[in-house]
């Protein structure tokens, strides 16, 4: 089976996020990027399918700080090809990224047709989870999101897929391949890859580089960010102080005052 995995880098919230001086974007002074967690699960799901059914895994990502390490790490984990897409705006809307990928993938030798295209169903900066379904749409392929399990049947060119709903409900679907699947979680957590293996991959393997054609560089965006700001608190918790007796009295006062006693 041939599986394409689309990865992207998102802000790492371990660092405090600050708004830039333009008031519309994140300050990059101390910003670090990390691979989207759902995309890491998509890669794991792809590797599990490869282990079960054979085939190849192709990883694709738009250039961004630290993405090279992510791509080499994917190769060290067992991916067969890693493609870095260069050019274009650093920040793309979900729609922009999806349309761009849909235009680019058919032009890269040996990539399409694929049996499955896996990517995270959501990202920190794509909470609506738009990229994956828009990509499917642009490629004219079926889409299922919030996927937590994939049972591929390469001979019959279909897959049985578990999709998560709210309230702990699961749906089971059968989808013909090729298809795009938005991954919520792989069956197992993303595997560990020893640092020595990644270092070895960095030395012995190569990343492919594909440039976005100049014509596609300026994509019209229909959404413009007006302002980016941190949430302002409208209230705070009131901290009560005093001896245990005083505190008990205050708590009673508050409860009585709200008609709860």
């Amino acid at each position, binding site marked *: 089976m041939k599986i394409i995995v689309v990865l992207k880098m998102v802000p790492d919230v*371990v*660092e405090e996020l600050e708004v830039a001086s333009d008031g519309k974007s994140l300050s990059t002074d101390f910003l670090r990027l990390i691979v989207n967690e759902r995309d890491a699960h998509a890669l794991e799901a792809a590797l599990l399918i490869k282990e079960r059914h054979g085939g190849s895994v192709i990883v694709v990502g738009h250039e961004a700080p630290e993405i090279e390490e992510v791509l080499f790490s994917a190769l060290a984990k067992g991916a067969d090809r890693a493609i870095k897409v260069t050019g274009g705006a650093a920040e793309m809307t979900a729609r922009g990224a999806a349309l761009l990928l849909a235009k680019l993938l058919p032009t890269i030798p040996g990539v399409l047709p694929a049996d499955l295209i896996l990517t995270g169903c959501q990202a920190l900066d794509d909470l609506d989870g738009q990229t994956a379904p828009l990509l499917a749409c642009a490629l004219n392929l079926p889409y299922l999101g919030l996927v937590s399990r994939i049972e591929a049947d390469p001979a019959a060119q279909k897959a049985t897929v578990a999709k998560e709903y709210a309230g702990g409900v699961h749906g089971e679907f059968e989808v013909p391949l090729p298809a795009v699947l938005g991954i919520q979680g792989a069956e197992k*957590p993303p595997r*560990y890859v*020893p*640092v020595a*293996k*990644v*270092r070895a991959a960095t030395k012995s393997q190569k990343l492919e580089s594909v440039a976005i054609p100049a014509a596609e560089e300026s994509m019209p965006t229909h959404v413009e960010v007006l302002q980016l700001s941190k949430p302002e608190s409208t209230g705070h918790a009131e901290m009560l102080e005093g001896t245990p007796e005083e505190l008990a009295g205050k708590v009673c006062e508050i409860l009585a005052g709200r008609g709860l006693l």
Partner: protein
Amino acid sequence: MGHLATPPIKTSCEITLENLWQTAEGRKVLTCIQCGTCAGTCPYGEVMDYPPRRIIGMLRAGLLEEVYVSESLLNCVACYACKAKCPRGIDLTGVLLPLVKEQVLLHVPEMPVELQKALENTLRYGNPMGESPRKRAAWAKTAGVPIRVFSEDARTADVLWFVECYNSFYPRGQNISRATAKLFHILGVDFAILGNEEKCAGECGRLSWETGLSNTLMEYNMALLAKYRFHRIVTSSPHAYDAFKYRYPVLGFNYTLEQTVPFLFSYLEHLKPRLKRKLNYRVTYHDSCCLGRHNNYYEEPRELLRAIPGMQLVEMTHNRINTICCGGGGGGMWLDTYYKTKNQERLSERRAREAVATGADVLAVACDYEVSRFEDALKVLGADKKMVVKDVTELLAEALED
């Protein structure tokens, strides 16, 4: 045992399972008489499918690959008990076991999640907690004494104080750092810290089977140390001490190195008159594996404790070379959830029980892993009201106030 008097071997990172027989340490492995002392003294020996003795047996029989796919070595906490007791003086903990463990890492079908996270965090953020490196020196702001950071003031210092992860990020560890800073200050030590530039020394990477990780950290730290000028390195962490002493020399590390406890011991003449406050504690001292068994510092911490007025020292059944590991080494710090799934009692609980049995009020420790491990163990045993855990430096600092 005679071989304890000989200085521990500085092992080279260049030893591999392939070239083992060409090295002196490797050839020593061949002298194993299969007596089983290692397995008998190992704190988790009874749950291992392959204790050290059997690993050597498998190695000799050409069956070592069976050990790679076993979870047995997940139980090794790198406590040096086997090495210390081996009648042949084979460096199991330092040489053979890490080499086999590295292969286990590559072959184990499922890696415990907690351990994986700790290793990934250490690579990415320089600490296993996954905290922002920019918060590493935040504790210094409330230390109460001036603390110089090399990146802000690069003048030569007498001492580069390598604080390490747990003493930077964990609240209890931060207390220990503040106590240490206070002691350095009143002793007039001219010191500076690396602050947010500091990253894990990488000892647990080595003994947790991740040589790629520890090599990455070693390269980083060697470059960082080369940026600044100082006469010696003092580290609070016995694990970092071990890393610098036994692993870093292969990258050219030749700085004068001390751990906090022997360092403070060397100042005892100046320190003793300042220990004015009487602390009427019955205290039992837990010998750390790295500081004690591996590096022979048994009496220095005890002398420091005895210098505190009012302290009454009692010994646990297993003390000095016979100490029972807290379970934090060799990756054990991040395997508690794994041991729980195997229904194995944590070593920290086993040891805490022994501590409580002495009737002491205070369990004194000197290693950055131990405070949180023993506090947790005492809570689990329901003994946290009977006994508290304090680092030697915390007790000394407490005795300073009058």
